[in-house]
């Protein structure tokens, strides 16, 4: 016998009432990070031991600045989604779990903003 109401069946959200939002965000950012991280490894290899002038010239091209911002934004989003699942699975005390989740979520936004600001400052700053 079907135990779910017809509405619940149509919504298809299951017991967590959350749906595929987390899953989909993880996949989308994961797909974006495949080319972005490979590009970054290649680009960063050329900057080993570089001085600030060389580094600024490299970031300052619009293309590199845009790719760096895309890398950072998809990176922090992907990381906080992944760390959220790790915390939910391994931190069992409700208080510690909530505090860790808040720190990870806010920390991700904080790191994202710091890095984007740094990239813009290196690109447009004096």
């Amino acid at each position, binding site marked *: 016998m079907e135990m779910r109401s017809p509405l619940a069946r149509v919504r298809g959200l299951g017991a967590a009432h959350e749906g595929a939002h987390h899953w989909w965000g993880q996949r989308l950012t994961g797909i974006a990070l495949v080319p972005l991280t490979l590009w970054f490894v290649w680009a960063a290899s050329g900057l080993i031991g570089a001085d600030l002038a060389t580094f600024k010239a490299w970031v300052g091209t619009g293309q590199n600045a845009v790719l760096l911002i895309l890398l950072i934004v998809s990176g922090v989003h992907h990381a906080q989604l992944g760390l959220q699942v790790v915390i939910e699975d391994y931190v069992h005390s409700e208080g510690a779990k909530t505090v860790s989740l808040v720190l990870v979520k806010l920390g991700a936004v904080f790191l994202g903003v710091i890095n984007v600001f*740094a990239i813009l400052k*290196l690109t447009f700053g004096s």
Partner: protein
Amino acid sequence: MARRERPLSPHLQVYRLPRTAILSITHRMTGVALSGGILILTFWLTSATYSAECFAWAQDIMGSWIGQIVLWGVLFSLYYHLGNGIRHMIWDTGAGFDLPTVHRSDYLVIAFSIIATAATLGCVYFVIGG
């Protein structure tokens, strides 16, 4: 009769994890390591916004032997997480889920992460001469 405390399953102290499980937990551990990599990237980018000396100091730290070991660890984590992440997306389509195929792709992911790390290491030290 008193109830005995039974071990929860899988009882990790006595249960030898199958290779698939080791690769699965490695995916999480490399993911956590890569989150640490974001902190290193933040350190690198923000140091450049202060001064030439500050950036040179950051470059020196990352170029030190301990810095290099950490960066190679992050790079290995990246290649592993990338290779295994692509495998997860293939699994999402429903393909490659039978056990013989999973055992083959296990070795493919391990080989890819080791070879890609070694190839990057070779490029950096011998081609670029870093």
